[in-house]
């Protein structure tokens, strides 16, 4: 019994992931190393054995050679792994938004368990959900690889640019002008009417959806979010990186968090035939969904920008 040889074989065994015959492989390597050491120096010493062991190769490399062609997930599924994760996460994200809006749990075990939570906790929850979705897709692709590695899986087309590029388009001056004009109109409305949320377009007698305090507060926050978009868009004329919209959308998300948790409770006006609470809540929910979608798209673009071409 040679201690260094047994230690070497234990190391190989640690990395060796074969279905059958692991002990046979180790027995064959043991037999080979001892015979070679005997031929090189008789009697065999720990030192002569060590020389043969070192020539045989690192345990990790030795084990890897027995596992060639046995990928955990086939390399041809690499793109599927990311695309399927994105799609699954999109569903997870929409359901999370619904759960947050209705303050309810959504359970569809084993696929989803979305607890009742506020919008603030939805952000760390979504990050966790992303890791979970990645794991689920990897798990499925693992089984597909083990059963039939040349299986042809569905491939929905989503354009996100090539590797090493963010896929972000060049900013257009016309868009910036339109955004600035829109901001100007809203700012004018806020200064003149103390609100930007109207349900009547009668310029002589415009009516706000909200009570005066809430109107001013939420209008300012909405304008701040829009200003953030305009600043981000302007910066992209000088520095068109995916990081810019990522930071921009993160700030807008923060503003939305303030909106959701604001101490000012909005009181909705009453209008004949329209439930303004649904209109107001729907608007905020739509804005949150849109912003988180844009944030996640920016996150994907940043990862693509950072990946090697």
């Amino acid at each position, binding site marked *: 019994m040679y201690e260094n040889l047994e230690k070497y074989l234990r190391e190989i065994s640690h990395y060796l992931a074969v279905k059958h015959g692991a002990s046979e*492989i180790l027995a064959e*390597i043991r*037999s*080979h190393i001892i*015979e070679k050491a005997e031929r090189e120096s008789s009697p065999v010493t720990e030192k002569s054995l060590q020389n043969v062991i070192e020539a045989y190769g690192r345990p990790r490399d030795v084990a890897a*050679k027995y596992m060639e062609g046995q990928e955990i997930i086939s390399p041809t599924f690499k793109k599927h792994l990311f695309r399927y994760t994105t799609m699954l996460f999109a569903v997870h994200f929409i359901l999370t938004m619904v759960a947050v809006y209705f303050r309810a749990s959504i359970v569809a075990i084993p696929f989803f368990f979305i607890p009742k939570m506020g919008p603030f906790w939805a952000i760390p929850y979504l990050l966790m959900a992303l890791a979970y979705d990645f794991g689920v897709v990897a798990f499925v692709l693992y089984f597909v690889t083990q059963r039939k590695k040349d299986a042809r899986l569905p491939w929905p087309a989503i354009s996100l640019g090539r590797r090493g590029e963010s896929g972000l388009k060049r900013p257009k001056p016309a868009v910036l002008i339109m955004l600035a004009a829109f901001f100007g109109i809203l700012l004018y409305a806020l200064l003149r009417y103390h609100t930007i949320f109207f349900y009547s377009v009668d310029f002589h007698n415009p009516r706000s959806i909200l009570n005066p305090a809430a109107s001013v507060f939420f209008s300012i926050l909405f304008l701040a979010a829009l200003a953030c978009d305009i600043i981000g868009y302007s910066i992209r004329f000088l520095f068109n990186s995916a990081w810019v919209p990522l930071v921009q959308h993160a700030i807008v998300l923060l503003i939305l968090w303030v909106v959701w948790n604001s101490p000012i409770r909005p009181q909705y006006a009453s209008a004949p035939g329209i439930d303004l609470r649904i209109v107001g809540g729907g608007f905020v929910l739509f804005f949150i969904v849109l912003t988180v979608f844009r944030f996640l798209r920016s996150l994907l673009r940043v990862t693509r920008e950072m990946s090697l071409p």
Partner: protein
Amino acid sequence: MVTRMDPELSSLETEMNRGFLQVLVLAVLERRMYGYAMIRHLEESGYAVEENTLYPLLRRLEKNGWITSEWDVGEDRPKKYYVITDKGRSIRGQALAIWAGQSEILTKMEEANRDV
């Protein structure tokens, strides 16, 4: 003076050896032999093979059914002996035919290039 092989050529040689070694092992195993004896036999014939390459290859060939093995525990230490199967002989014959065809194409190309 020791001449060191170009790394690109060395990489190409590794690629070429991948298929060659399989056919070579199928040729050697007409005689029942165990791993270390096979390495020494190949070395004596002028072909050096890394031991950590040969054993995984033997396992793959056995999985394909081209060779078969059995443990001999009668000696001072157990040894795993390998020998070619009928399927292995058939594969070897076909592989050699492919090789002869490739060699013929290369010869024709060389001859055609003489005029260039």
